[in-house]
């Protein structure tokens, strides 16, 4: 005689359960189930995943218990979701009693994103159209559509809130959404990319991951926006400093003035002789490389060319170097020398602009240069 209910009976019992709720004075939120919910799994999927994790054996529970628990958690999360849309509300709402450290966890996890997903969306306009195409992204990245939508909505929500805000972008995100420093920085990058709509989807850029772009975004925000010049300036951080972009075309003198170009080259070559493996290639290519970098600068006054910033860096600089098998430290040595040597050019008056331009270019290229 079997004393435990067989599975079929178990199932029948569950079907007939009209109502099943559990409410704690302190809201119980299981991190594992929260992750499954965030990942967009249905209750059924989540239950079978939990079963596979061996939780039943560990606690001697049956499937019905797990189903009830999962459903309950999902309901709790759905109820809490609107609060997560405005995380500051979570701290002073009265409906859920959640300890502060758990609130922070909930927010951080809710705003976390899949690197694969964000890579797809980076630089795209956060419009309804993009949202409609999320099923393609979902198929491509393996992230569930539900999760894609949540992440997209997060991007858009953050974008909308900070778009019109004054002051430093990352700080704004951090304060308004109560995110950790790291996550706020990532959102800064996402917002920045979405605003300027940098092209990141081209095939040649596929090898770059989100982290690469986020780093570059950080560099651009720190150096090329209006807020970068003077942090006291109460202005937006999401747009590049137009004035600076205009000034960039003055750098052209470095390639148009033949004397200066030669002098620049000889300074670099003298300094690097024997110090890099690809000296010969460098010497042969110097003028092309210099031209490429300066031309990129000169083009940045046009919005369209700003969008092509990364593709230009790859096509005009990174690819030629790579085909000559430059190693990263050679690239680093070259760029450092290339930047610094310009200081010694007496006729070159645009030192400040040069510095501001090259600091970013140098660190971006170094980040983007995968051997």
């Amino acid at each position: 005689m079997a004393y435990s209910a067989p599975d079929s009976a178990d199932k029948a019992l569950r079907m007939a359960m009209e109502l099943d709720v559990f409410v704690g004075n302190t809201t119980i939120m299981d991190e594992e189930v929260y992750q499954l919910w965030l990942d967009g799994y249905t209750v059924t999927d989540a239950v079978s995943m939990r079963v596979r994790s061996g939780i039943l054996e560990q606690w001697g529970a049956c499937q019905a218990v797990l189903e009830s628990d999962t459903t309950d958690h999902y309901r709790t999360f759905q109820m809490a979701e609107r609060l997560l849309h405005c995380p500051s509300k979570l701290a002073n709402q009265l409906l859920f009693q959640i300890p502060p450290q758990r609130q922070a966890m909930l927010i951080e996890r809710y705003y976390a994103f899949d690197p694969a997903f964000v890579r797809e969306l980076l630089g795209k306009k956060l419009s309804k159209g993009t949202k409609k195409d999320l099923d393609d992204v979902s198929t491509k990245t393996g992230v569930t559509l539900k999760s894609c939508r949540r992440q997209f909505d997060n991007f858009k929500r953050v974008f909308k809130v900070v778009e019109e805000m004054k002051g430093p972008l990352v700080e704004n995100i951090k304060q308004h959404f109560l995110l950790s420093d790291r996550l706020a920085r990532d959102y800064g990058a996402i917002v920045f990319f979405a605003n300027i709509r940098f092209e990141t989807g081209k095939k040649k850029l596929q090898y770059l991951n989100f982290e690469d772009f986020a780093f570059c975004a950080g560099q651009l925000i720190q150096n090329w926006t209006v807020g970068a010049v003077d942090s006291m300036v109460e202005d937006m951080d999401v747009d590049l400093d137009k004035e600076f972009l205009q000034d960039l075309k003055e750098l052209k003198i470095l390639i148009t003035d033949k004397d200066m170009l030669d002098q620049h080259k000889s300074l670099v070559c003298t300094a690097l002789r024997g110090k890099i493996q690809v000296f010969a290639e460098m010497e042969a290519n110097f003028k092309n490389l210099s031209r490429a970098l300066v031309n990129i600068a000169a083009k940045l006054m046009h919005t369209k060319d700003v969008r092509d910033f990364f593709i230009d860096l790859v096509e005009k600089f990174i690819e030629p170097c790579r085909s000559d098998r430059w190693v990263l430290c050679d690239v680093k040595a070259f760029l450092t020398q290339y930047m610094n040597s310009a200081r010694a050019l007496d006729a070159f008056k645009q030192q400040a602009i040069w510095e501001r331009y090259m600091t970013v270019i140098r660190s971006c290229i170094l980040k983007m240069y995968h051997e």
Partner: protein
Amino acid sequence: MPGKLKVRIVAGRHLPVMDRASDLTDAFVEVKFGNTTFKTDVYPKSLNPQWNSEWFKFEVDDEDLQDEPLQITVLDHDTYSANDAIGKVYIDIDPLLSSEAATVISGWFPIYDTIHGIRGEINVLVKVDLFNDLNRFRQSSCGVKFFCTTSIPRCYRAVIVHGFVEELVVNEDPEYQWIDRIRTPRASNEARQRLISLMSGELQRKIGLKVLEMGGNAVVGYLQCFDLEGESGLVVRAIGTACTLDKLSNPSAALLPACNSPSKDMKEAPFSEDPNPNTHSSGPSTPLKNQTYSFSPSKSYSRQSSSSDTDLSLTPKTGMGSGGSVGKEGGPLKTLLRQQTQSALEHREFPFFTLTCFPMGFLVHVGGVVSARSVKLLDRIHNPDEPETRDAWWEEIRQEIKSHAKALGCHAVVGYSETTSICEEVCILSASGTAAVLNPKFLQDGCLDSCSEHRLEEPSPPSCGFCHIPYDELNMPFPAHLTYCFNCRRQKVPDVLFTTMDLPLEAAVTGKGCLIQARLCRLKKKAQGEANATAISNLLPFMEYELHTQLMNKLKLRGMNALFGLRIQISVGENMLVGLASATGVYLTALPTPGGIQIAGKTPSDISYEQHISNMQKKINETIAKNKELYEIIPPESIDEMIGSPIPEPRQRSRLFRSHSESSDEVSELDLSHGKKDAFVLEIDDADAVEDIHSLLTDAPLPTGFYSCNTEIMPGIYNWTSGVQMFTSVRVFRLNNTNLTNQGLNKIFNDLCENLLKSLYFKLRSMIPCCLCHVNFAVAVPEDELIQVAVTAVAMTFDKDQAQENLKLYVDKTLMKVITENEEQLQFPLELCSDSQSGNPFSPIKGTGLQENAGMHIVPSAQRATSVDYSSFADRCSTWIELIKLKAQTIRRGSIKTTSSLEKASPVSEGHSRLRSTTSNTGCTVAVVKMTPLSFIPGAKIIKYLGIINMFFIRETTSLREEGGVSGFLHAFIAEVFAMVRAHVAALGGNAVVSYIMKECVFMENPNKNQAQCLINVSGDAVIFVRECDLEALPVQPQTSAAQTSSSGGEVPA
């Protein structure tokens, strides 16, 4: 005009968008009290308005202050159409009326709408200026304190326990008024909420008046319930225990006025401090300190006059001369005790106490559970001002309880409660409690004089005294096997003890306790009117009997011998009755080791059947062995060996012998039968019995690390840490199968409860090791094919390692602590314990010093049936008493009843507040409000009671699917109720609710119409507590804000 109510509306936040065009709201607030209304200005275009209003002042009678709630309505201003209501806040200002409770209400309240739920929050400030009213004939009872807690509240000292107070008020239910057909659901819900709030206020005021009349100043164990009788009306009723409480100015001070004696005439001097405090006190911590607690024999207030004569006539052997009864009993002392107790209680119409936990020495003996049930047909309440029928119904039941108690040789009923279950026009009224003998010292005037004499009297050791039988062993009211107490070896004890109260803290217990439930469903034909009532009446005794059998079997299966906190609920539906009995099983060291369960098959049978039987027997034996290990029940024989003196001392033995020789054959027969320990036989004579045994064995074992009980404290666990998680879980099961059998139904119901428990254990697994305390199940049959089970309980963490090592030590320490705490807080006499500790336990017949207060003494009778009224269908059905008698050979019980039940028992532990917390405190910025059904918070000290929380909410939806179905709807509603309770507590300056209960959760749905409605009624005591470590660090009371509450490890499971 004795009072001025002042209200200021400060601000709002998170308001809903009321104007779609602007995505904003133009909010203003109406503040209403009684018939006066004030309005704030409109704060345009904001979801976070800052009104910063002036002080709105209401000049009102204090009668109104008690009855009326303050009503705050938030509205959206609309220039062209009617203003839209956003929601309301009802604030009960009663806590402001007592000088010892809260002084101001200030904080964020959720704005609640019965259709939309919580919609933002509003910051409100409320104050009351009370002018002293010297009018003797006043209608108000301001200043009487109310406590839900069913023990003496922790920062008070009981000067006098006056006794039972009850009251009920009736009204028409707005939902059933003609106007309801034309008003909106919102208006209807609000009318209902407001009416119940008003009625609660009125009820509380009236009870307060009774308390004042009795000379008391507080109600402890206050339980208010409402009965939705549908067409016939709405009843709000309450019971409680009137007390005179004294606030302990400094709870840690050891020296307090030593003795209080109540005067005879309460009206002249309700209570007075004794002018000659006992000088015996030798030091702050010595248990020998001689203090006396006095119990006032004041007459219980009641509308009807006492009818003690008729009561007595119910038991045949009343009026017997004391000499005769002395001769018959083992010792005359018992009789003397009874005489005195009785005389003191004789004056009371109902010597009932809603308390479940008592100061040391209060309880002398416990007889067993007494309960009564009666089936009534509801009729329309014609005149709300004269709710006589309902009063008469309860009166009848209480009389019956009283006579049952008498039959058990007891004069008081403790752990008393009353409940109802209503289906259409049929109503089952139930009452239950525990018959008990109280210490005559507490019930007598001039206690100081008798102190010295009492010292000579034979004291029962506190650890077992309450187990000793109060009834005459020759005329036992029910068949029971008596043995000499395994603890003191001097007095008789029953083999099993059932009670509705909490386990006394001083009780000697072996091992740990556990939750035991009996579950039962019985199908019933649909019927109307009298036929229906008769059918229910006929079913009840069988259900009671079976529930008891189940309880007894399960108790034996766990190797235990006593049940505490027993609560039997029988709910009636259209086509079935559902019964659920919950209790905490315990092994009382004083009681004999329970025998096993033996299965007897029906007469000669084939071999396979025999084998089947023996298999089952094996399984049962295995389960018992496993349970004993699980609950750490070491047979007392081995304990005796450990302690070392199993044989009574010579004198004692001689007395034992003497009592044997004195006693008749019956006694020796009883002793003989005790020799056969396996006398408990389960006969398998039909399919039902097989089913029973199955259900016995299908109770899932507790997962490792979990314990559960339905009482305040878990026997065997003493070192709670600070983790506290209160929760409510509700399940509704739909019976799809139309032709169900009783067995099928039983299985479904059993599985429903078992699975619910399993789910709870799983949910709370992160708190292990932990104990579910005060597990309170409520069953209902809301519709034809629905069974609803709601559970409220608290999970508390404890330190496992310490539990094992220090158990023995701790018990001793607890005892000491109880003593000292009693000294500090309660002022109870300590002779008993000190005597027992000094090892001078024996002076048997020196009861002569007792004052003999004449009066009648009752010799309990075995002919219990005489007290039962067989008459009409509407009355209790008592035939089952006969049934019990027939089956008495197989089932022995520690309780007596005709038709029994008890709706609620919120047990309480006293002297258990000083529990060490091992978790250290880390700061926490959010105001956390803890909620617990217990009367204490582990590792913390309650420093102030801020007033009673008693809230009633209705929630309705016409978009059930959109709100996540029934589960989504109810989940949100329960969360909202919690939120509103917390907000009110925080606004009173508190950081916890203790003795919290959800008294009602009525859920109705109509999925076809996409509608659902739910009513919830909750109550509890708002308190301020401080962590013990904080208390040590800060000698001064810390700020009243809730900031210092939760430690990081505290209320944070999962």
